[in-house]
């Protein structure tokens, strides 16, 4: 199979790896900034829960999933079993299957080893950054890979720092708690391109709030995004047929 067969989206093969890396770093610094307070908080909580520093590092490297790690920590402190923690992690992280599917549109025909390496770094944040760049500008798979793995390094470093020194940093320093929210706001803004996308965003937001209020757990993310996108899709089809 030919690599990079996506004909209308040429990958910048003439540019050097340093160039990809620099572009990836420029795109990922807001993620790293956002991960830092969250990772510090996680590390500090893990330390209080009695996890050794090496266990925090091992968990961040092997799992690399913010919310699932917090939940696992909470379950560990209440004495939950290994199997139930693993099952909960699975449910919490199933949403990444949707993100992975959307990214597949832009990684058609790419080598399977690359995909295996890339998949490891798909998180809410790296997905959001990469999908916006893929859609709006000339963005290649190597830049996207750099975003994924730089974010991962930041997460591992932040959680390790947290487990070493997190207890000495006061909560909410310099509005750090808002870094991730600010990033999501900016990314939603960049996705609002036409009436259908605005409508889809509103529908998904409304479903999400209702679902979050009515159903415990984290299923609201999958429920609202599938629900919102499906409604948006059918509305788009109906309006297209009418014209």
């Amino acid at each position, binding site marked *: 199979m030919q690599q990079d067969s996506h004909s209308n989206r040429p990958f910048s093969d003439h540019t050097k790896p340093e160039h990809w890396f620099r572009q990836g770093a420029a795109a990922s610094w807001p993620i790293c*900034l956002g991960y830092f307070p969250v990772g510090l908080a996680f590390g500090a909580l893990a330390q209080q829960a009695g996890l050794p520093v090496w266990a925090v590092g091992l968990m961040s490297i092997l799992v690399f999933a913010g919310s699932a790690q917090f939940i696992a920590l909470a379950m560990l402190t209440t004495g939950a079993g290994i199997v139930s923690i693993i099952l909960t992690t699975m449910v919490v*992280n199933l949403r990444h299957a949707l993100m992975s599917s959307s990214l597949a549109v832009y990684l058609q025909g790419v080598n399977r080893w690359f995909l295996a390496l890339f998949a490891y770094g798909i998180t809410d944040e790296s997905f959001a950054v990469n999908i916006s760049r893929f859609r709006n500008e000339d963005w290649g798979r190597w830049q996207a890979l750099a975003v994924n793995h730089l974010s991962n390094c930041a997460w591992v470093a932040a959680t390790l720092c947290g487990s070493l020194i997190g207890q000495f940093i006061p909560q909410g320093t310099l509005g750090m708690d808002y870094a991730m929210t600010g990033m999501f706001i900016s990314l939603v803004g960049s996705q609002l391109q036409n009436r259908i996308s605005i409508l889809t965003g509103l529908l998904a937001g409304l479903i999400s709030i209702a679902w979050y209020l009515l159903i415990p757990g984290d299923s609201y993310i999958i429920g609202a995004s599938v629900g919102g996108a499906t409604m948006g899709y059918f509305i788009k089809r109906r309006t297209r047929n009418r014209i």
Partner: protein
Amino acid sequence: MSFTDYLLLFSGMGLVTYLPRWFPLFHLAHRRLPQWLIDWLSLIPVAILSALLAPILFVDTQPRCLHIGKLELLVAIPTLIFALKSRSMGATVLVGMLLYWVGGLFF
């Protein structure tokens, strides 16, 4: 817990986290996607982002209840306007953090 227990737990968590991230890419990147699927998937990003963001802005977490007028929401409005005008994620994050920090002093 012993080293083996931790390793077992984290490997299991890692596996169930990795598989949903990997399988759709692996499966879908090597076949021609039908147009309806491409159209549907193109709406997924905005839907996921809104689904993640909406509860942060409109709902209190413990216990879960609707709260219109959270500081998160008040800060989000100027932050979104700045995001739409500037189109810069880094600057938007910094503006959001600054407003949230200043807002926190008065709220």
